[in-house]
């Protein structure tokens, strides 16, 4: 029993730093996406004043339903041009891991309450 507990604690100690490095989708959204998509995800971020193209309203089920999860993954990872949209949406592949992007896609589905 004592040995099992030691093994469990060792495994936990090894895994813990890795767990700590992965940011939650909500925290990533706040840090990187709020600036254009807004604190409420409605496309009304602090930067929109002089933007030539309005950022996507992530709370709009109608607008978001037209995008597949693959499209959302692609546009976050490679930027707007990857899906023939605006250059104003940058690629975030150097910022997020693929796992973080998948989690952001799931978070967007929560915001729009749509599939």
């Amino acid at each position, binding site marked *: 029993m004592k040995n099992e507990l030691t093994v469990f604690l060792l495994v936990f100690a090894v895994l813990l730093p890795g767990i700590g490095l992965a940011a939650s989708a909500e925290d990533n959204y706040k840090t990187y996406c709020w*600036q254009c998509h807004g604190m409420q995800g409605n496309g009304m971020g602090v930067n929109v004043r002089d933007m030539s193209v309005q950022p996507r309203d992530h709370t709009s089920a109608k607008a978001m339903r037209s995008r597949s999860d693959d499209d959302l993954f692609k546009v976050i990872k490679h930027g707007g041009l990857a899906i023939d949209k605006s250059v104003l949406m940058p690629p975030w592949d150097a910022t997020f891991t693929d796992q973080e992007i998948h989690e952001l896609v799931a978070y967007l589905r929560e915001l729009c309450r749509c599939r």
Partner: protein
Amino acid sequence: MRATISLLLLFLSASSWADTGEQLLQQRCASCHDLQGPAASTLEDLWQRKGPDLFYAGVKYRPQWLRQWLQKPRRIRPAGYLYFQHIKPGEKHDVIDASTLSEHMALSADEARKVTEALMTRKAAPVQVKGDEFGGGSISITFGEMVFDKFNGCMACHEIEPGYGGLSGPEVYTAAKRMQSAYLVSFIRDPQAWNPKTPMPNKHTSELNIQKIVRYFHALAKENWDEK
């Protein structure tokens, strides 16, 4: 008598030590700026930071600008160092919450000179910057703006003149006055190599475009924005 002299010597040595740029840095700057590195590797760490990292200030800033700015500081990032800590929902869109922003302290001319000298010795850059990163040359503001905004979309987050452009990032119309050209090239090429959690994305723009963007910063920096 001996004790009095010892105390006097101790006082004199302590006060001269307190006058060095390094001591000023520790006393006045260290609570908001990281002077040792490394850069934040987690969001939790990033969110704790109150101002830009300074452990590679010697390869980033222009000393002349630094010395002047420290005496008469003005805001470079309209929404503060981490924009998401200084915004609130507005009538039409999110707006800057000025009540959460604080002014940067001003130093005396002597303090600014010493702090600048101390900062310029800090060169622990996470990326090796070659002196010839920027090839020089010039570009018109009109064409530069096309490269910066239309081709790369950078204006979404940066003001290209006072009151025009994005608010979450630092203004770029003074970028070439503030920063060394080689650093600018290197940072645009790979922002995450400098600061893994920076809100600035890597646009993967071409080397030629990076050179044009830095030329554009130089063209903007020649304008006298205070008189406009």
